[in-house]
Protein backbone atom coordinates (compact mmCIF):
# COMPACT_ATOMS: atom_id res chain seq x y z
CA UNK A 1 0.00 0.00 0.00
CA UNK A 2 2.73 2.45 0.94
CA UNK A 3 4.50 1.59 -2.28
CA UNK A 4 1.40 2.56 -4.23
CA UNK A 5 1.14 5.86 -2.41
CA UNK A 6 4.70 6.70 -3.26
CA UNK A 7 4.16 6.22 -6.95
CA UNK A 8 1.42 8.81 -6.92
CA UNK A 9 2.20 12.49 -6.47
CA UNK A 10 0.23 15.26 -4.83
CA UNK A 11 -2.87 14.08 -2.97
CA UNK A 12 -2.71 10.69 -4.67
CA UNK A 13 -3.03 12.20 -8.14
CA UNK A 14 -1.12 10.42 -10.85
CA UNK A 15 0.09 12.99 -13.41
CA UNK A 16 3.56 12.83 -14.92
CA UNK A 17 5.80 15.92 -15.30
CA UNK A 18 5.40 15.82 -19.08
CA UNK A 19 1.64 15.81 -18.62
CA UNK A 20 1.83 18.78 -16.27
CA UNK A 21 3.80 20.78 -18.81
CA UNK A 22 1.30 20.10 -21.57
CA UNK A 23 -1.66 20.76 -19.30
CA UNK A 24 -0.25 24.19 -18.52
CA UNK A 25 0.42 24.79 -22.23
CA UNK A 26 -3.21 23.96 -23.07
CA UNK A 27 -4.39 26.12 -20.18
CA UNK A 28 -2.42 29.04 -21.59
CA UNK A 29 -3.94 28.46 -25.03
CA UNK A 30 -7.42 28.50 -23.47
CA UNK A 31 -6.88 31.50 -21.20
CA UNK A 32 -5.01 33.96 -23.43
CA UNK A 33 -7.91 34.79 -25.79
CA UNK A 34 -10.28 35.22 -22.81
CA UNK A 35 -7.81 37.30 -20.88
CA UNK A 36 -6.81 39.65 -23.66
CA UNK A 37 -10.44 40.14 -24.70
CA UNK A 38 -11.51 40.93 -21.16
CA UNK A 39 -8.83 43.57 -20.59
CA UNK A 40 -9.06 45.02 -24.12
CA UNK A 41 -12.19 46.88 -23.06
CA UNK A 42 -10.08 49.08 -20.76
CA UNK A 43 -7.64 50.13 -23.46
CA UNK A 44 -7.94 52.58 -26.28
CA UNK A 45 -7.30 51.46 -29.80
CA UNK A 46 -3.71 52.72 -29.98
CA UNK A 47 -2.78 51.05 -26.74
CA UNK A 48 -4.37 47.81 -27.89
CA UNK A 49 -2.12 47.83 -30.91
CA UNK A 50 1.09 48.20 -28.93
CA UNK A 51 0.33 46.05 -25.89
CA UNK A 52 -2.47 43.58 -26.62
CA UNK A 53 -1.40 41.12 -23.91
CA UNK A 54 -0.38 43.38 -21.05
CA UNK A 55 -2.42 45.16 -18.41
CA UNK A 56 -3.91 48.52 -19.45
CA UNK A 57 -2.09 51.72 -18.44
CA UNK A 58 -5.18 52.91 -16.63
CA UNK A 59 -8.34 51.02 -15.72
CA UNK A 60 -10.60 53.42 -17.57
CA UNK A 61 -14.13 51.95 -17.56
CA UNK A 62 -15.40 54.41 -20.19
CA UNK A 63 -16.17 51.75 -22.82
CA UNK A 64 -18.14 49.72 -20.30
CA UNK A 65 -20.14 52.61 -18.85
CA UNK A 66 -20.99 53.90 -22.33
CA UNK A 67 -22.49 50.53 -23.17
CA UNK A 68 -24.33 50.18 -19.86
CA UNK A 69 -25.92 53.61 -20.24
CA UNK A 70 -26.37 53.25 -24.00
CA UNK A 71 -29.88 51.84 -23.68
CA UNK A 72 -29.81 48.88 -26.06
CA UNK A 73 -27.60 46.67 -23.89
CA UNK A 74 -30.19 45.81 -21.24
CA UNK A 75 -32.85 45.44 -23.91
CA UNK A 76 -30.78 42.74 -25.64
CA UNK A 77 -30.25 40.90 -22.37
CA UNK A 78 -33.90 41.18 -21.45
CA UNK A 79 -34.98 39.86 -24.86
CA UNK A 80 -32.60 36.90 -24.49
CA UNK A 81 -33.74 36.21 -20.96
CA UNK A 82 -37.41 36.33 -21.87
CA UNK A 83 -36.99 34.01 -24.86
CA UNK A 84 -34.88 31.59 -22.81
CA UNK A 85 -37.26 31.57 -19.83
CA UNK A 86 -40.36 30.80 -21.90
CA UNK A 87 -38.42 28.20 -23.92
CA UNK A 88 -37.35 26.45 -20.72
CA UNK A 89 -40.84 26.49 -19.26
CA UNK A 90 -42.56 25.16 -22.38
CA UNK A 91 -39.85 22.55 -22.97
CA UNK A 92 -40.19 21.24 -19.41
CA UNK A 93 -43.97 21.09 -19.48
CA UNK A 94 -44.50 19.55 -22.91
CA UNK A 95 -41.64 17.07 -22.86
CA UNK A 96 -42.09 15.83 -19.29
CA UNK A 97 -45.82 15.27 -19.84
CA UNK A 98 -45.25 13.38 -23.07
CA UNK A 99 -42.36 11.38 -21.62
CA UNK A 100 -44.45 10.36 -18.58
CA UNK A 101 -47.25 9.11 -20.78
CA UNK A 102 -44.84 7.25 -23.04
CA UNK A 103 -43.01 5.69 -20.11
CA UNK A 104 -45.90 4.68 -17.87
CA UNK A 105 -49.22 4.50 -19.69
CA UNK A 106 -50.02 1.56 -21.93
CA UNK A 107 -52.08 2.80 -24.84
CA UNK A 108 -52.53 2.17 -28.54
CA UNK A 109 -49.77 3.79 -30.62
CA UNK A 110 -47.31 4.23 -27.80
CA UNK A 111 -44.30 2.65 -29.51
CA UNK A 112 -44.84 4.39 -32.82
CA UNK A 113 -45.17 7.80 -31.15
CA UNK A 114 -42.01 7.12 -29.16
CA UNK A 115 -40.04 6.30 -32.28
CA UNK A 116 -41.50 9.32 -34.07
CA UNK A 117 -40.06 11.60 -31.38
CA UNK A 118 -36.75 9.79 -31.40
CA UNK A 119 -36.41 10.36 -35.15
CA UNK A 120 -35.96 13.98 -34.11
CA UNK A 121 -32.53 13.08 -32.74
CA UNK A 122 -31.38 12.20 -36.22
CA UNK A 123 -31.27 15.53 -37.94
CA UNK A 124 -29.95 18.95 -37.08
CA UNK A 125 -32.22 21.90 -36.81
CA UNK A 126 -30.30 23.74 -39.54
CA UNK A 127 -31.80 21.45 -42.18
CA UNK A 128 -35.27 22.75 -41.35
CA UNK A 129 -34.43 26.42 -40.96
CA UNK A 130 -35.64 27.51 -44.38
CA UNK A 131 -39.11 25.90 -44.42
CA UNK A 132 -39.38 26.78 -40.73
CA UNK A 133 -39.07 30.41 -41.76
CA UNK A 134 -41.97 29.96 -44.19
CA UNK A 135 -44.09 28.15 -41.57
CA UNK A 136 -43.45 30.84 -38.96
CA UNK A 137 -44.20 33.54 -41.52
CA UNK A 138 -47.49 31.86 -42.41
CA UNK A 139 -48.38 31.71 -38.73
CA UNK A 140 -47.73 35.47 -38.55
CA UNK A 141 -45.04 35.05 -35.91
CA UNK A 142 -42.08 36.74 -37.64
CA UNK A 143 -40.58 39.44 -35.41
CA UNK A 144 -42.41 37.89 -32.48
CA UNK A 145 -40.48 36.17 -29.69
CA UNK A 146 -42.81 33.18 -30.12
CA UNK A 147 -41.39 32.72 -33.61
CA UNK A 148 -38.09 31.84 -31.94
CA UNK A 149 -39.49 30.16 -28.83
CA UNK A 150 -41.83 27.63 -30.45
CA UNK A 151 -39.27 26.17 -32.90
CA UNK A 152 -36.72 26.00 -30.09
CA UNK A 153 -39.16 24.03 -27.95
CA UNK A 154 -40.06 21.78 -30.86
CA UNK A 155 -36.43 21.00 -31.57
CA UNK A 156 -35.71 20.42 -27.87
CA UNK A 157 -38.42 17.77 -27.65
CA UNK A 158 -36.56 14.73 -28.96
CA UNK A 159 -33.61 15.06 -26.62
CA UNK A 160 -35.66 16.15 -23.58
CA UNK A 161 -38.22 13.39 -24.00
CA UNK A 162 -35.38 10.87 -24.20
CA UNK A 163 -33.81 12.21 -20.98
CA UNK A 164 -37.15 12.30 -19.14
CA UNK A 165 -38.17 8.82 -20.30
CA UNK A 166 -34.93 7.29 -19.08
CA UNK A 167 -35.42 8.94 -15.72
CA UNK A 168 -39.13 8.11 -15.38
CA UNK A 169 -38.60 4.44 -16.23
CA UNK A 170 -36.22 4.14 -13.28
CA UNK A 171 -38.72 5.57 -10.80
CA UNK A 172 -40.00 2.89 -8.39
CA UNK A 173 -42.93 1.18 -10.07
CA UNK A 174 -44.56 0.43 -6.73
CA UNK A 175 -45.30 4.10 -6.21
CA UNK A 176 -47.17 4.44 -9.45
CA UNK A 177 -48.95 1.10 -9.07
CA UNK A 178 -50.03 2.04 -5.57
CA UNK A 179 -51.43 5.30 -6.83
CA UNK A 180 -53.30 3.46 -9.56
CA UNK A 181 -54.78 1.13 -6.90
CA UNK A 182 -56.05 4.20 -5.15
CA UNK A 183 -57.79 5.05 -8.43
CA UNK A 184 -55.64 8.08 -8.88
CA UNK A 185 -55.74 9.13 -12.54
CA UNK A 186 -52.58 9.55 -14.59
CA UNK A 187 -52.73 13.33 -14.64
CA UNK A 188 -52.71 13.40 -10.86
CA UNK A 189 -49.95 10.80 -10.67
CA UNK A 190 -47.87 12.94 -13.03
CA UNK A 191 -48.45 16.10 -11.07
CA UNK A 192 -48.39 14.89 -7.46
CA UNK A 193 -46.04 11.90 -7.56
CA UNK A 194 -43.74 11.98 -10.58
CA UNK A 195 -42.89 15.68 -10.86
CA UNK A 196 -41.83 16.17 -7.22
CA UNK A 197 -39.46 13.20 -7.57
CA UNK A 198 -37.93 14.52 -10.77
CA UNK A 199 -36.13 17.64 -9.67
CA UNK A 200 -32.65 16.53 -10.85
CA UNK A 201 -33.78 15.70 -14.38
CA UNK A 202 -35.98 18.80 -14.57
CA UNK A 203 -32.93 20.87 -13.71
CA UNK A 204 -30.76 19.12 -16.29
CA UNK A 205 -33.27 19.65 -19.08
CA UNK A 206 -33.86 23.24 -17.96
CA UNK A 207 -30.16 24.05 -18.02
CA UNK A 208 -29.81 22.50 -21.48
CA UNK A 209 -32.79 24.36 -22.86
CA UNK A 210 -31.55 27.58 -21.32
CA UNK A 211 -28.01 27.31 -22.67
CA UNK A 212 -29.28 26.37 -26.13
CA UNK A 213 -31.67 29.28 -26.23
CA UNK A 214 -29.30 31.83 -24.73
CA UNK A 215 -26.59 31.02 -27.28
CA UNK A 216 -28.86 30.51 -30.29
CA UNK A 217 -27.99 32.65 -33.27
CA UNK A 218 -29.32 31.13 -36.50
CA UNK A 219 -32.98 30.98 -35.48
CA UNK A 220 -33.36 34.56 -34.21
CA UNK A 221 -31.26 35.71 -37.18
CA UNK A 222 -33.84 34.30 -39.56
CA UNK A 223 -37.00 35.09 -37.57
CA UNK A 224 -36.32 38.57 -36.16
CA UNK A 225 -35.74 41.68 -38.24
CA UNK A 226 -36.62 44.47 -35.87
CA UNK A 227 -33.69 45.28 -33.62
CA UNK A 228 -35.95 46.09 -30.68
CA UNK A 229 -36.62 42.36 -30.40
CA UNK A 230 -33.00 41.21 -30.89
CA UNK A 231 -31.49 38.83 -28.35
CA UNK A 232 -27.88 39.53 -27.41
CA UNK A 233 -26.08 37.45 -30.11
CA UNK A 234 -27.80 39.50 -32.81
CA UNK A 235 -27.17 42.64 -30.77
CA UNK A 236 -23.47 41.99 -30.44
CA UNK A 237 -23.13 41.25 -34.16
CA UNK A 238 -24.96 44.49 -34.94
CA UNK A 239 -22.66 46.36 -32.57
CA UNK A 240 -19.64 44.76 -34.20
CA UNK A 241 -20.99 45.82 -37.59
CA UNK A 242 -21.12 49.42 -36.38
CA UNK A 243 -17.68 49.60 -34.83
CA UNK A 244 -15.93 47.06 -37.06
CA UNK A 245 -12.34 47.22 -35.85
CA UNK A 246 -12.88 49.36 -32.79
CA UNK A 247 -12.05 46.26 -30.81
CA UNK A 248 -12.00 47.85 -27.33
CA UNK A 249 -15.66 48.80 -27.74
CA UNK A 250 -16.69 45.49 -29.33
CA UNK A 251 -14.84 43.42 -26.74
CA UNK A 252 -16.20 45.48 -23.84
CA UNK A 253 -19.68 44.77 -25.15
CA UNK A 254 -18.85 41.10 -25.49
CA UNK A 255 -17.41 40.92 -21.97
CA UNK A 256 -20.50 42.48 -20.46
CA UNK A 257 -22.88 40.14 -22.27
CA UNK A 258 -20.98 36.91 -21.72
CA UNK A 259 -19.73 37.33 -18.15
CA UNK A 260 -23.04 36.78 -16.33
CA UNK A 261 -23.89 33.86 -18.59
CA UNK A 262 -20.49 32.23 -18.09
CA UNK A 263 -20.85 32.54 -14.32
CA UNK A 264 -24.25 30.89 -14.49
CA UNK A 265 -23.10 28.11 -16.78
CA UNK A 266 -20.13 27.29 -14.59
CA UNK A 267 -22.42 27.10 -11.58
CA UNK A 268 -24.68 24.74 -13.52
CA UNK A 269 -21.77 22.73 -14.94
CA UNK A 270 -22.76 19.53 -13.14
CA UNK A 271 -26.12 19.46 -14.90
CA UNK A 272 -24.67 20.20 -18.31
CA UNK A 273 -22.27 17.30 -17.93
CA UNK A 274 -24.87 14.89 -16.64
CA UNK A 275 -27.05 15.77 -19.62
CA UNK A 276 -24.16 15.10 -21.99
CA UNK A 277 -23.59 11.70 -20.47
CA UNK A 278 -27.15 10.53 -20.81
CA UNK A 279 -28.96 12.15 -17.90
CA UNK A 280 -27.60 9.74 -15.35
CA UNK A 281 -28.25 12.13 -12.45
CA UNK A 282 -29.85 10.53 -9.47
CA UNK A 283 -30.03 13.57 -7.22
Amino acid at each position, binding site marked *: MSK*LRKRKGL*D*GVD*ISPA*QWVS*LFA*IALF*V*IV*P*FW*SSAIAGFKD*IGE*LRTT*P*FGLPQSWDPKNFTEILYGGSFFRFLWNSLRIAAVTVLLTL*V*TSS*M*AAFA*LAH*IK*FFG*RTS*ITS*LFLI*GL*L*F*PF*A*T*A*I*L*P*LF*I*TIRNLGLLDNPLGVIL*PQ*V*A*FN*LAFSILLFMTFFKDLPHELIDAAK*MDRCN*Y*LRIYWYIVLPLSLPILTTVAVFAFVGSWNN*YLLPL*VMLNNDSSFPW*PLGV*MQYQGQYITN*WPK*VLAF*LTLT*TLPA*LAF*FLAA*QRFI*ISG*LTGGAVKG
Partner: protein
Amino acid sequence: MSQTSVIQSGKRSTRGQKAFFQASILIVPALILFIGLVIWPLLNAFMFSFYKWNGFGPLTDFEGLDNYGDVLTHRTFPTALRNVGLLAVTSLLIQLPLALWAALALYQKAWFVSVFRTLFFLPYVLAEIAAGLIWRFVYDGEYGLVPAIGDTLHTEMPFVLAERAWVMPAIILVVMWKYFGFHMMIYIAGLQSIPNEVIEAARMDGVSRRKIMWHIKIPMIKSSIAISVFFAIVGSLQLFDLIVPLTGGGPQNSSHTLVSFLYEFGIRRMKLGFGGATSVVLFVICVGVTLLYRRLVLARMDQ
Protein backbone atom coordinates in the same frame (compact mmCIF):
# COMPACT_ATOMS: atom_id res chain seq x y z
CA MET B 1 -59.38 -5.75 -2.58
CA SER B 2 -60.66 -8.74 -4.54
CA GLN B 3 -63.88 -6.89 -5.19
CA THR B 4 -62.17 -3.92 -6.76
CA SER B 5 -60.11 -6.13 -9.05
CA VAL B 6 -63.30 -7.83 -10.24
CA ILE B 7 -64.83 -4.47 -10.94
CA GLN B 8 -61.73 -3.28 -12.72
CA SER B 9 -61.51 -6.31 -14.99
CA GLY B 10 -65.18 -5.87 -15.78
CA LYS B 11 -64.47 -2.33 -16.90
CA ARG B 12 -61.38 -3.14 -18.91
CA SER B 13 -62.44 -1.42 -22.11
CA THR B 14 -63.53 1.80 -20.42
CA ARG B 15 -60.27 1.78 -18.44
CA GLY B 16 -58.38 1.43 -21.68
CA GLN B 17 -60.31 4.34 -23.12
CA LYS B 18 -59.62 6.39 -20.01
CA ALA B 19 -55.92 5.64 -20.19
CA PHE B 20 -55.91 6.59 -23.87
CA PHE B 21 -57.73 9.82 -23.12
CA GLN B 22 -55.36 10.76 -20.30
CA ALA B 23 -52.33 9.83 -22.37
CA SER B 24 -53.59 12.06 -25.18
CA ILE B 25 -53.91 15.05 -22.89
CA LEU B 26 -50.30 14.55 -21.86
CA ILE B 27 -48.88 13.90 -25.32
CA VAL B 28 -50.86 16.14 -27.65
CA PRO B 29 -49.06 19.45 -26.89
CA ALA B 30 -45.67 17.92 -27.63
CA LEU B 31 -47.00 16.09 -30.66
CA ILE B 32 -48.53 19.22 -32.21
CA LEU B 33 -45.32 21.18 -31.77
CA PHE B 34 -43.18 18.35 -33.06
CA ILE B 35 -45.25 17.60 -36.13
CA GLY B 36 -45.95 21.27 -36.88
CA LEU B 37 -42.44 22.63 -36.43
CA VAL B 38 -40.13 19.68 -37.05
CA ILE B 39 -41.75 17.11 -39.34
CA TRP B 40 -43.87 19.48 -41.42
CA PRO B 41 -41.01 21.90 -42.26
CA LEU B 42 -38.82 18.98 -43.29
CA LEU B 43 -41.50 17.66 -45.62
CA ASN B 44 -41.85 21.21 -46.94
CA ALA B 45 -38.13 21.51 -47.63
CA PHE B 46 -38.49 18.39 -49.70
CA MET B 47 -41.40 19.87 -51.60
CA PHE B 48 -39.79 23.28 -52.18
CA SER B 49 -36.74 21.59 -53.61
CA PHE B 50 -38.67 20.67 -56.78
CA TYR B 51 -39.84 24.23 -57.47
CA LYS B 52 -38.41 27.58 -58.35
CA TRP B 53 -39.77 29.86 -55.66
CA ASN B 54 -38.87 33.18 -54.05
CA GLY B 55 -41.08 32.63 -51.00
CA PHE B 56 -44.10 34.59 -52.22
CA GLY B 57 -47.22 33.45 -54.02
CA PRO B 58 -48.15 29.87 -54.86
CA LEU B 59 -45.72 27.14 -55.82
CA THR B 60 -46.15 26.87 -59.58
CA ASP B 61 -42.75 26.68 -61.31
CA PHE B 62 -42.14 22.97 -61.11
CA GLU B 63 -38.53 22.29 -62.03
CA GLY B 64 -38.07 18.65 -61.20
CA LEU B 65 -34.54 17.96 -60.13
CA ASP B 66 -33.04 21.19 -61.52
CA ASN B 67 -32.40 22.64 -58.05
CA TYR B 68 -30.43 19.58 -57.06
CA GLY B 69 -28.36 19.97 -60.20
CA ASP B 70 -27.79 23.64 -59.34
CA VAL B 71 -26.66 22.79 -55.79
CA LEU B 72 -24.34 19.99 -56.80
CA THR B 73 -22.74 22.03 -59.59
CA HIS B 74 -22.57 25.28 -57.58
CA ARG B 75 -19.01 26.64 -57.50
CA THR B 76 -18.97 26.82 -53.69
CA PHE B 77 -20.64 23.50 -52.95
CA PRO B 78 -17.49 21.36 -53.32
CA THR B 79 -15.62 23.87 -51.15
CA ALA B 80 -18.27 23.65 -48.43
CA LEU B 81 -18.26 19.87 -48.61
CA ARG B 82 -14.45 19.76 -48.48
CA ASN B 83 -14.35 22.17 -45.52
CA VAL B 84 -16.84 20.06 -43.57
CA GLY B 85 -14.78 16.96 -44.34
CA LEU B 86 -11.62 18.76 -43.29
CA LEU B 87 -13.20 19.84 -40.00
CA ALA B 88 -14.39 16.31 -39.27
CA VAL B 89 -11.06 14.68 -40.11
CA THR B 90 -8.94 17.14 -38.11
CA SER B 91 -11.32 16.73 -35.17
CA LEU B 92 -10.92 12.98 -35.27
CA LEU B 93 -7.16 12.96 -35.79
CA ILE B 94 -6.04 15.84 -33.57
CA GLN B 95 -8.76 17.15 -31.30
CA LEU B 96 -10.16 13.88 -29.97
CA PRO B 97 -6.79 12.23 -29.16
CA LEU B 98 -5.75 15.44 -27.40
CA ALA B 99 -9.01 15.48 -25.44
CA LEU B 100 -8.59 11.82 -24.51
CA TRP B 101 -5.04 12.45 -23.42
CA ALA B 102 -6.11 15.36 -21.20
CA ALA B 103 -9.00 13.31 -19.82
CA LEU B 104 -6.61 10.52 -18.77
CA ALA B 105 -4.81 13.04 -16.59
CA LEU B 106 -7.82 14.99 -15.41
CA TYR B 107 -10.38 12.32 -14.52
CA GLN B 108 -8.79 11.99 -11.11
CA LYS B 109 -10.41 13.62 -8.12
CA ALA B 110 -8.54 16.54 -6.59
CA TRP B 111 -9.34 20.23 -6.38
CA PHE B 112 -6.51 21.43 -8.62
CA VAL B 113 -7.45 18.84 -11.23
CA SER B 114 -11.00 20.13 -11.28
CA VAL B 115 -9.69 23.67 -11.79
CA PHE B 116 -8.09 22.50 -15.05
CA ARG B 117 -11.22 20.62 -15.99
CA THR B 118 -13.43 23.66 -15.50
CA LEU B 119 -10.99 25.86 -17.38
CA PHE B 120 -10.91 23.53 -20.39
CA PHE B 121 -14.68 23.29 -20.35
CA LEU B 122 -15.11 27.08 -20.29
CA PRO B 123 -14.92 27.67 -24.09
CA TYR B 124 -17.64 25.07 -24.63
CA VAL B 125 -20.22 26.99 -22.59
CA LEU B 126 -19.30 30.25 -24.29
CA ALA B 127 -21.72 31.15 -27.08
CA GLU B 128 -20.39 30.40 -30.58
CA ILE B 129 -20.94 34.02 -31.59
CA ALA B 130 -18.83 35.24 -28.66
CA ALA B 131 -16.08 32.68 -29.34
CA GLY B 132 -16.07 33.66 -33.00
CA LEU B 133 -15.72 37.37 -32.22
CA ILE B 134 -12.99 36.80 -29.65
CA TRP B 135 -10.98 34.86 -32.22
CA ARG B 136 -11.66 37.36 -34.94
CA PHE B 137 -9.93 39.82 -32.63
CA VAL B 138 -7.09 37.36 -31.95
CA TYR B 139 -6.55 36.96 -35.70
CA ASP B 140 -7.06 40.63 -36.58
CA GLY B 141 -4.09 41.58 -38.76
CA GLU B 142 -3.88 45.08 -37.34
CA TYR B 143 -4.88 45.02 -33.66
CA GLY B 144 -5.01 41.34 -32.84
CA LEU B 145 -2.77 38.94 -30.98
CA VAL B 146 -1.37 37.24 -34.07
CA PRO B 147 0.45 40.37 -35.37
CA ALA B 148 1.63 41.07 -31.80
CA ILE B 149 3.17 37.61 -31.66
CA GLY B 150 4.69 38.34 -35.07
CA ASP B 151 6.24 41.55 -33.71
CA THR B 152 7.97 39.76 -30.86
CA LEU B 153 9.27 37.13 -33.28
CA HIS B 154 10.24 39.87 -35.78
CA THR B 155 8.26 38.26 -38.57
CA GLU B 156 5.41 39.55 -40.66
CA MET B 157 2.27 37.56 -39.87
CA PRO B 158 -0.40 37.07 -42.54
CA PHE B 159 -3.96 38.39 -42.16
CA VAL B 160 -5.04 34.83 -41.49
CA LEU B 161 -8.78 35.27 -41.98
CA ALA B 162 -8.28 37.10 -45.27
CA GLU B 163 -6.08 34.55 -46.98
CA ARG B 164 -7.44 31.45 -48.60
CA ALA B 165 -4.49 29.35 -47.53
CA TRP B 166 -4.79 30.29 -43.87
CA VAL B 167 -8.48 30.63 -43.27
CA MET B 168 -9.39 26.96 -42.76
CA PRO B 169 -6.46 26.13 -40.47
CA ALA B 170 -7.40 29.23 -38.46
CA ILE B 171 -11.03 28.08 -38.18
CA ILE B 172 -9.94 24.57 -37.24
CA LEU B 173 -7.87 25.99 -34.38
CA VAL B 174 -10.93 27.86 -33.08
CA VAL B 175 -13.06 24.72 -33.34
CA MET B 176 -10.49 22.87 -31.24
CA TRP B 177 -10.34 25.64 -28.69
CA LYS B 178 -14.13 25.64 -28.45
CA TYR B 179 -14.98 21.92 -28.41
CA PHE B 180 -11.90 20.22 -27.00
CA GLY B 181 -13.24 20.50 -23.43
CA PHE B 182 -16.59 19.05 -24.43
CA HIS B 183 -15.02 15.85 -25.71
CA MET B 184 -12.71 15.74 -22.71
CA MET B 185 -15.72 15.84 -20.38
CA ILE B 186 -17.35 12.90 -22.19
CA TYR B 187 -14.18 10.86 -21.72
CA ILE B 188 -13.83 11.93 -18.09
CA ALA B 189 -17.36 10.75 -17.33
CA GLY B 190 -16.45 7.40 -18.90
CA LEU B 191 -13.15 7.09 -17.07
CA GLN B 192 -14.73 7.93 -13.72
CA SER B 193 -17.19 5.10 -14.12
CA ILE B 194 -14.41 2.47 -14.38
CA PRO B 195 -14.39 0.63 -11.05
CA ASN B 196 -11.28 1.58 -9.13
CA GLU B 197 -10.57 -2.04 -8.14
CA VAL B 198 -9.92 -2.98 -11.76
CA ILE B 199 -7.07 -0.49 -12.07
CA GLU B 200 -5.72 -1.12 -8.57
CA ALA B 201 -5.68 -4.87 -9.22
CA ALA B 202 -3.72 -4.37 -12.43
CA ARG B 203 -1.25 -2.14 -10.57
CA MET B 204 -0.79 -4.76 -7.86
CA ASP B 205 0.01 -7.28 -10.58
CA GLY B 206 2.74 -4.95 -11.77
CA VAL B 207 1.12 -3.94 -15.06
CA SER B 208 2.84 -0.82 -16.40
CA ARG B 209 1.02 2.51 -16.60
CA ARG B 210 1.21 2.52 -20.37
CA LYS B 211 -0.37 -0.92 -20.56
CA ILE B 212 -3.07 0.04 -18.08
CA MET B 213 -3.91 2.98 -20.33
CA TRP B 214 -3.97 1.04 -23.60
CA HIS B 215 -5.41 -2.25 -22.41
CA ILE B 216 -7.74 -1.26 -19.60
CA LYS B 217 -8.72 2.40 -19.53
CA ILE B 218 -9.19 3.11 -23.24
CA PRO B 219 -11.03 -0.14 -24.07
CA MET B 220 -13.34 0.41 -21.10
CA ILE B 221 -14.48 3.80 -22.36
CA LYS B 222 -14.99 2.83 -25.98
CA SER B 223 -18.68 3.71 -25.81
CA SER B 224 -17.75 7.24 -24.69
CA ILE B 225 -15.30 7.43 -27.58
CA ALA B 226 -17.97 6.24 -30.00
CA ILE B 227 -20.34 8.99 -28.80
CA SER B 228 -17.70 11.68 -29.00
CA VAL B 229 -16.66 10.66 -32.53
CA PHE B 230 -20.29 10.88 -33.53
CA PHE B 231 -20.68 14.36 -32.02
CA ALA B 232 -17.51 15.51 -33.78
CA ILE B 233 -18.79 14.40 -37.20
CA VAL B 234 -22.32 15.73 -36.76
CA GLY B 235 -20.94 18.94 -35.24
CA SER B 236 -18.79 19.52 -38.32
CA LEU B 237 -21.80 18.99 -40.56
CA GLN B 238 -23.77 21.59 -38.61
CA LEU B 239 -21.11 24.22 -37.99
CA PHE B 240 -22.46 27.70 -38.69
CA ASP B 241 -22.49 30.06 -35.70
CA LEU B 242 -18.69 30.19 -35.50
CA ILE B 243 -18.24 30.86 -39.21
CA VAL B 244 -20.43 33.97 -39.30
CA PRO B 245 -18.46 36.17 -36.88
CA LEU B 246 -15.09 34.82 -38.06
CA THR B 247 -15.32 35.07 -41.83
CA GLY B 248 -18.94 35.02 -42.98
CA GLY B 249 -17.76 32.36 -45.43
CA GLY B 250 -15.00 34.48 -47.02
CA PRO B 251 -12.50 35.23 -48.41
CA GLN B 252 -14.00 34.52 -51.84
CA ASN B 253 -16.42 31.97 -50.35
CA SER B 254 -13.51 29.74 -49.38
CA SER B 255 -14.53 29.05 -45.77
CA HIS B 256 -18.19 28.07 -46.15
CA THR B 257 -19.59 25.05 -44.36
CA LEU B 258 -22.73 23.28 -45.59
CA VAL B 259 -24.99 25.31 -43.28
CA SER B 260 -23.38 28.67 -44.07
CA PHE B 261 -23.68 27.73 -47.75
CA LEU B 262 -27.37 27.07 -47.20
CA TYR B 263 -27.78 30.38 -45.39
CA GLU B 264 -25.79 32.47 -47.87
CA PHE B 265 -27.14 31.10 -51.15
CA GLY B 266 -30.57 29.82 -50.14
CA ILE B 267 -32.00 31.94 -47.34
CA ARG B 268 -30.33 35.32 -47.81
CA ARG B 269 -31.14 35.37 -51.50
CA MET B 270 -34.62 33.94 -50.89
CA LYS B 271 -34.00 31.18 -53.40
CA LEU B 272 -36.17 28.72 -51.55
CA GLY B 273 -36.04 25.97 -54.14
CA PHE B 274 -32.28 26.05 -54.12
CA GLY B 275 -32.25 26.27 -50.31
CA GLY B 276 -34.74 23.42 -50.06
CA ALA B 277 -32.54 21.23 -52.22
CA THR B 278 -29.51 22.12 -50.07
CA SER B 279 -31.51 21.25 -46.94
CA VAL B 280 -32.45 17.89 -48.39
CA VAL B 281 -28.82 17.18 -49.34
CA LEU B 282 -27.69 18.11 -45.82
CA PHE B 283 -30.50 16.05 -44.33
CA VAL B 284 -29.58 13.01 -46.39
CA ILE B 285 -25.91 13.32 -45.40
CA CYS B 286 -26.78 13.70 -41.68
CA VAL B 287 -29.26 10.83 -41.59
CA GLY B 288 -26.96 8.70 -43.73
CA VAL B 289 -24.01 9.29 -41.42
CA THR B 290 -26.13 8.60 -38.35
CA LEU B 291 -27.64 5.37 -39.64
CA LEU B 292 -24.34 4.14 -41.00
CA TYR B 293 -22.60 4.95 -37.74
CA ARG B 294 -25.29 3.19 -35.73
CA ARG B 295 -25.08 0.11 -37.85
CA LEU B 296 -21.30 -0.06 -38.16
CA VAL B 297 -20.10 1.19 -34.80
CA LEU B 298 -22.76 1.45 -32.13
CA ALA B 299 -24.43 -1.86 -32.97
CA ARG B 300 -21.12 -3.70 -32.91
CA MET B 301 -20.37 -2.12 -29.56
CA ASP B 302 -23.41 -3.70 -27.93
CA GLN B 303 -22.30 -7.20 -28.83
